[in-house]
């Protein structure tokens, strides 16, 4: 067979399809990728070091700024890890409100993913539709805590404030129209021939490879492994919720699209249940004014829209700040699987693979 001379090119770090500042070193034989090496670190801010030098409360704002598309999910993991470290019991109403906002955040994050991923592949229209609904979710964030993107929504021990008046109306208004909106996106994509040509069978990652590489979230569920931390290790109010874990077995980009679309439906279901079964009571635990830790070491993982986000904290006796703060960023671990998916495929499919990973570089580089 005719063999071209190999060529090495850099994709990124300023390429729009890399969702930030990811650089991928590619070696090409014609249009086929023979070698792929993701290079990261362009957005490294030393979040772990900063949080080790700040008090338990102050560290939370940095978790917003790691993965700015799913700030609420990062907040939830952070406050729950701290509650586990300090041994705090949180009121039930706070758990419900956290679950509610977390699911809204999942919808917002998946909508960003849908818009940008479709745009990478060439379907520009979906982006505009997806951002229309995301705006409503951000309005709900704003109604709850005043900020839209970097929310700092929760506090260690519960919430800063209860739900504002009129919040229920906002939620019901959103839920009433959201399922028809999902149908709109699916009309644009699901049976679209170009979309299917670009995604079906592209960037496969089998279940064995995914587990070996530590891949979690929709990527793993699209390979047929029904591993969702909300079900496997329930936290917040997820043990009381009735929802399904959507899975596919094709393990390709199209399957990941289907899994994420199904997850948004489930999120809407959970939001409905939260609103229906919202218990009464306080939203903040009784805490001392100053939080001091004991010698302890915890790893708390939650299901962020991207996958398993884990916080590893070490507490020092009588200390105001964590002795060690480490984030297991889902994007960081998931990105390791890019060479496995891209090698042997076409260069155009690398963009589809990166898109299906749903990465945010702020979280990968920390």
């Amino acid at each position, binding site marked *: 067979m005719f063999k071209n001379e190999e060529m090495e090119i850099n994709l990124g770090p300023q390429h729009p399809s890399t969702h930030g500042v990811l650089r991928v070193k590619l070696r090409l034989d014609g249009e086929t990728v023979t070698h792929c090496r993701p290079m990261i670190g362009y957005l490294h801010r030393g979040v772990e*070091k900063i949080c080790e030098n700040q008090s338990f409360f102050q560290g939370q704002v940095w978790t917003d700024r790691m993965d700015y598309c799913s700030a609420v999910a990062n907040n939830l993991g952070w406050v729950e890890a701290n509650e586990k470290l300090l041994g705090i019991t949180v009121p039930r109403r706070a758990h419900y409100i956290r679950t509610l906002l977390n699911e809204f955040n999942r919808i917002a994050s998946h909508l960003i993913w849908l818009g940008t991923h479709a745009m990478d592949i060439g379907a520009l229209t979906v982006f505009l539709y997806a951002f229309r609904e995301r705006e409503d979710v951000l309005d709900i964030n704003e109604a709850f805590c005043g900020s839209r993107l970097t929310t700092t929504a929760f506090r260690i021990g519960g919430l800063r404030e209860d739900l504002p008046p009129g919040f229920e109306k906002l939620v019901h208004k959103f839920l009433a129209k959201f399922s028809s909106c999902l149908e709109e996106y699916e009309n644009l994509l699901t049976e679209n021939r170009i979309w299917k040509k670009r995604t079906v069978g592209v960037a496969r990652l089998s279940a064995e490879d995914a587990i070996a590489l530590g891949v979690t979230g929709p990527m793993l569920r699209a390979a047929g492994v029904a591993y969702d931390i909300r079900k496997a290790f329930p936290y917040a109010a997820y043990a009381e919720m009735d929802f399904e874990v959507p899975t596919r077995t094709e393990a390709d980009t199209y399957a990941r699209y289907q899994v994420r679309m199904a997850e948004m439906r489930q999120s809407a279901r959970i939001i409905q249940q939260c609103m229906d079964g919202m218990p009464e009571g306080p939203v903040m635990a009784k805490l001392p004014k100053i939080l001091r830790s004991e010698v302890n070491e915890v790893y708390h993982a939650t299901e962020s829209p991207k996958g398993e986000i884990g916080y590893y904290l070490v507490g020092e006796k009588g200390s105001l700040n964590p002795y060690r703060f480490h984030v297991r960023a889902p994007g960081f671990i998931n990105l390791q699987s890019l060479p496995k998916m891209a090698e042997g495929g076409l260069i155009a499919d690398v963009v589809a693979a990166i898109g299906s990973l749903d990465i945010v570089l702020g979280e990968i580089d920390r």
Partner: protein
Amino acid sequence: MSEPNVPQTPEVPEAPAGPYVYDYKAAPNRQITMPKTVPLPGYRTYLAEQKAATEADEAKWQKTLADFETAKAKAEAEGKDAPKPPVRPVPRKDDNDMKAPVPQEATDADLLKLQALLGDKVEEVFEQAGELVCQVKKEAILEALALCRDEADLKYEMLADQSATHYPAAKDFTCSVVYHLTSISRRKRLRLRILAPEGFMPESACPLYPSANWMEREIYDMLGIRFQNHPDMTRILCPEDWEGYPLRKDYPTVGWGQRDISFREDRGGMLERIALQKAGQLGINLKQPKAD
């Protein structure tokens, strides 16, 4: 297991040799506060601490009683009223929802199984905050990981997270390396831990769990622990020529390049040059970037 967490005498930190040299006396606000304790949780350490605390409490009470007896005898001899008998203080009840989890004895079947299989290679097993912890000898980590992955009763398929912590106050080791394993089929989590002294190179977990690749690179980048048989032991987040390991406790949070002047005011960089000179007078070694 290392020494229990004995608070060590605070020392004035010596200016470390290297790129970040500070004169601590001249610039006290830029001093690095080194940790004085070794916050490494462990059941045995916890028991020893509890025992010492109970004994100290008892000794204090006995001393109070003895003091009371002498005071009483003295009062009787002088013909005065006898003093009030002392009341043993009850530990103050905290009226809040916070109760720090303490280490507990290992009762989980997984930990007991691991202990039985590994024998004396296990240094400690305990549970804390509902998490299973097993500390193994640093040379036996690969064996322990292989057991966790392949043993039919354990089946921890995924290495979810790997991280390390720097303990400068510890005597026998400098860093702990932790492995967070997840069993997807059995819905369990387990933490393996090793204690590595300076210069020790732990075996890489890559042959067993390929996900360890980047996590070990990150540990090397951030804490300077090199792993044996790793396919690609290079820095991952910092540039290749970066000096120092940022997450070590002796790494400063303020370095050269910290600006006190806004760019807007500083047209032409004159103010910055003056500040650099001043900083030089303060004894801060402002290393200029290497020219390529």
